[in-house]
């Protein structure tokens, strides 16, 4: 009896041992596939690799992580699929499991398979970005208004059915997209290049990791720097905190701003026919519990303001902070002048309205981006942005997705 059953015991034990080995090989094959996906994923950012190069990189990474042991006989031709937009790469590895005992009793070794996907973290593409998640429209371009984004995108995070709305205007960018829908009127004078994409993933606020600096004590209260004077109003960092509504410009008097940060606390900052002759390395921060709006009303000429390159406001020319309510008053530009910025216009809780031939553009030799809650450009107003990246964002980090 025992002698008769002994082969059965031995066979059962052998199959059991092989089954345990197959389980381990399957587990290690999954690790190899994870490494393969990460290895192949390294080629995503360049957007130039061929399918063969992706496969080679995947295989190399798989071999490195396992040393070729305890994964069975690995198929040397991994199945690699790269997303059309170069955002992800999926790898499937297969192997023939090792068989030590089971084949003696006619149990075939299984074919093991594992899949993994790696991808680059979502990277912002927009230099004109509306952060509102519900405004309708979050970006409105009407009556010969225009937004041009050179080398970058126009994007709205709003999920509205008119997330971006174009009516007799122009949208020209590297890409145009929205979480919701990009809509346009039937106007024959609409220009939208390239074709927009709807239902995209939201783009993150590229400046969200920055914290606005805190102003000191007030140097001016409800300042009005409009009266004529023979010498410029020269603002320096020794008195850089304006409390309440502040108006600058007019009456043919010039204004200069020494490099640094200028705060407007709980009030608006209005430039009215200002003639700014010096404003390099300058940030205007509208802050406080109830930050006011930035207003620009000039009727001719061009004014250049560039942001600091270092410090807490680096890269930002105008920064309207968010109040506790989450809603800040609308910023505006009016009149036929050009405001050329070297840096970002940043109002995460406020709108930006550009009207009546006012133009917001990049200063010569600089980059400019707009990150606001919502915006409208009307009446031949224009935004011409060109920031390849806002906030110094770099290529997205590679990570395993599944």
């Amino acid at each position, binding site marked *: *009896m*025992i*002698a008769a059953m*002994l082969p059965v*015991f*031995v066979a059962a*034990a052998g199959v*059991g*041992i092989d089954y*345990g*080995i197959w*389980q*381990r090989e399957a*587990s*290690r094959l999954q*690790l190899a596939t*994870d*490494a393969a996906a*990460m*290895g192949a994923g*390294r*080629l995503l950012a360049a957007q130039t*690799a061929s399918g*063969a*190069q992706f496969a*080679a*990189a995947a*295989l*190399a*990474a798989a*071999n*490195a*992580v*396992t*040393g070729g042991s*305890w994964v069975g006989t690995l198929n*040397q031709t991994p199945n690699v699929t790269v997303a059309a937009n170069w955002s992800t790469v999926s790898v499937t590895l297969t192997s023939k499991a090792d068989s030590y005992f089971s084949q003696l009793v006619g149990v075939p070794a299984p074919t093991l398979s594992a899949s993994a996907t790696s991808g680059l973290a979502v990277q912002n593409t927009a230099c004109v970005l509306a952060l509102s998640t519900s405004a309708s429209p979050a970006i409105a371009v009407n009556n010969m208004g225009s937004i041009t984004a050179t080398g970058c995108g126009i994007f709205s995070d709003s999920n509205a059915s008119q997330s971006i709305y174009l009516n007799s205007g122009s949208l020209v960018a590297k890409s145009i997209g929205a979480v919701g829908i990009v809509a346009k009127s039937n106007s024959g004078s609409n220009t939208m290049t390239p074709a927009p994409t709807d239902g995209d993933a939201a783009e993150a606020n590229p400046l969200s990791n920055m914290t606005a600096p805190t102003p000191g004590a007030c140097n001016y209260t409800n300042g009005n720097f409009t009266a004529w004077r023979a010498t410029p109003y020269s603002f320096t960092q020794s008195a850089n905190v304006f409390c309440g509504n502040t108006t600058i410009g007019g009456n043919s008097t010039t204004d200069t701003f020494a490099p640094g940060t200028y705060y407007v606390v709980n009030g608006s900052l209005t430039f009215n026919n200002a003639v700014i002759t010096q404003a390099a390395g300058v940030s205007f921060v509208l802050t406080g519990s109830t930050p006011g709006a930035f207003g620009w009303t000039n009727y001719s000429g061009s004014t250049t303001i560039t942001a600091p390159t270092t410090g807490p406001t680096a890269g930002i020319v105008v920064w309207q902070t968010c109040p506790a309510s989450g809603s800040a008053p609308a910023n505006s530009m009016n009149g036929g002048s050009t405001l050329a910025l070297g840096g970002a216009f940043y109002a995460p809780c406020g709108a930006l309205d550009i009207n009546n031939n006012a133009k917001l553009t990049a200063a010569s030799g600089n980059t400019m981006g707009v990150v606001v809650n919502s915006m409208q450009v009307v009446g031949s107003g224009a935004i011409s942005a060109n920031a390849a990246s806002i906030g110094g964002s770099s290529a997205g*980090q*590679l*990570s*395993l997705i599944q």
Partner: protein
Amino acid sequence: MKSAGAWPQRRGKRHIRGACGGVVSIEAALAISLVLMPMCLGTIGLGMALTAAARLDHAIQAAAFYAWANQGTAPSWGAANSATLAGAQSAAVAAYGTAAPAATITTAVAFYCVTSGYVQMPPAVTDTTACPAGESLATYLTIAASTSVTPPGMPDATAIPLSVTATVRVQ
């Protein structure tokens, strides 16, 4: 009426049956002691080894995942990211757990000159400034984990050594 000759015949069958029973007992004793018991102990030992190996694999996996999630950006990854190196080791140790048998887990940085078409690991390099033309410097994290398993009822000298090594690219 019973036959007078039936008695010896029945007695002989009992004798044979008794003799067979003894043979079966001896056969069973031999089979159990020489075959089944070693087979059971061996299977248990192999199971213990596979379990320990799976724990080592788990530790390696944890270290690899940690390294992938905390990749450095500086060219000299190892020097600039010693915290990541230590973190990967900690992750592996935690994943392995504290149950016996104890394991030795180490992490190290290795540099390789690679091309986009390679499928096997080239020899490691120590000069991180001089890769041949067409090759670029790649930084890898090497994780080594080892332990040993002594099958039940066996002396320590029969311990089964187990080791797993993995190399993952981190930059």
